[in-house]
């Protein structure tokens, strides 16, 4: 039986979608959860959905260094951190420029790196803590228009592996997850560019259909728990069988 009893867990990008579901699941398994995100109303909604008490929320824009410092100053040592904050933007390479590259990388990669660096430096990770980076199946593919998204998510996987080595002496683990398409507000917005019909056709490529946020949260619960204590540096695909094709 998976339990997160007495664990202090931090979830970024917890305003909605996968991050929200991770926070809810962790609270149900007994964890005390700190949720961060940019949107105060949505964070309040998330926190109202959590089980148990003692949870905290903080409005944080992870692309803002001062916000990260504020989060760090309010933090007690964590037993688990989910690096989930991310944005998606579809753009052919032909239309990229430095500010578009920055816009995606600063949120999807830089902010996660800076946050983990500060957590380590300020000794805010307990021994045997578990770090989970939410990457994407896009990092393994080559779908046209996803260059910056895919590259930033691939960079996270490499970062997580190096972190796993550097933190192993303290028994701290780091793993990444590559979900396929999960039905969330973010993917709906991103898929604005595609028509309803195209989306239905695309879903047929998934033997088990598109995922639900809870499908990803389940795997994250395993990684946060002591049941996965021998797993580190791994990169796990969870995609309803999409990559079987």
């Amino acid at each position: 039986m998976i339990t997160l009893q007495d664990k202090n867990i931090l979830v970024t990008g917890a305003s909605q979608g996968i991050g929200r579901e991770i926070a809810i699941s962790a609270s149900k398994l007994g964890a005390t959860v700190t949720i961060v995100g940019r949107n105060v109303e949505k964070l309040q909604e998330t926190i109202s959905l959590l089980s148990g008490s003692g949870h905290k929320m903080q409005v944080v824009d992870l692309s803002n260094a001062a916000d990260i410092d504020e989060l760090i100053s309010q933090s007690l040592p964590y037993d688990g951190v989910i690096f989930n904050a991310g944005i998606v933007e579809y753009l052919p390479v032909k239309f990229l420029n430095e500010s578009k590259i920055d816009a995606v990388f600063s949120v999807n990669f830089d902010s996660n790196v800076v946050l983990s660096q500060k957590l380590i430096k300020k000794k805010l990770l307990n021994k045997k803590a578990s770090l989970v980076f939410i990457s994407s199946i896009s990092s393994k593919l080559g779908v046209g228009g996803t260059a910056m998204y895919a590259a930033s998510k691939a960079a996270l996987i490499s970062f997580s592996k190096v972190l796993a080595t550097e933190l192993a002496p303290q028994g701290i683990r780091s793993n990444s997850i590559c979900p396929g398409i999960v039905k969330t507000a973010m993917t709906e917005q991103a898929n604005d560019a595609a028509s309803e019909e195209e989306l239905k056709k695309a879903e047929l490529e998934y033997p088990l259909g598109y995922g639900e946020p809870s499908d990803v949260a389940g795997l994250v619960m395993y990684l946060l728990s002591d049941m996965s204590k021998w797993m580190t540096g791994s990169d796990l695909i969870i995609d309803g069988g999409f990559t079987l094709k």
Partner: protein
Amino acid sequence: MEINAFLKNFADILDDTDAALITQETVFRDLDEWNSLTALSLIAMADEEYSVKLTGDDIKSSDSLNDIFEIIKNKG
């Protein structure tokens, strides 16, 4: 916003299509070069040149380039 400039911008996102084929009446979907990536390029071009966010449904509901032009004009 002027139609000829728009047609030129559209021709610019293509690589293998004769610019002479690009007119107001062109049914863009019938162009050999039209695919999901050119659709993304059209969306990116509308954003870059006209600060207009085109959606997939905007494109789907259009037939000719003039239809796209009108949508951009109305949203601009």
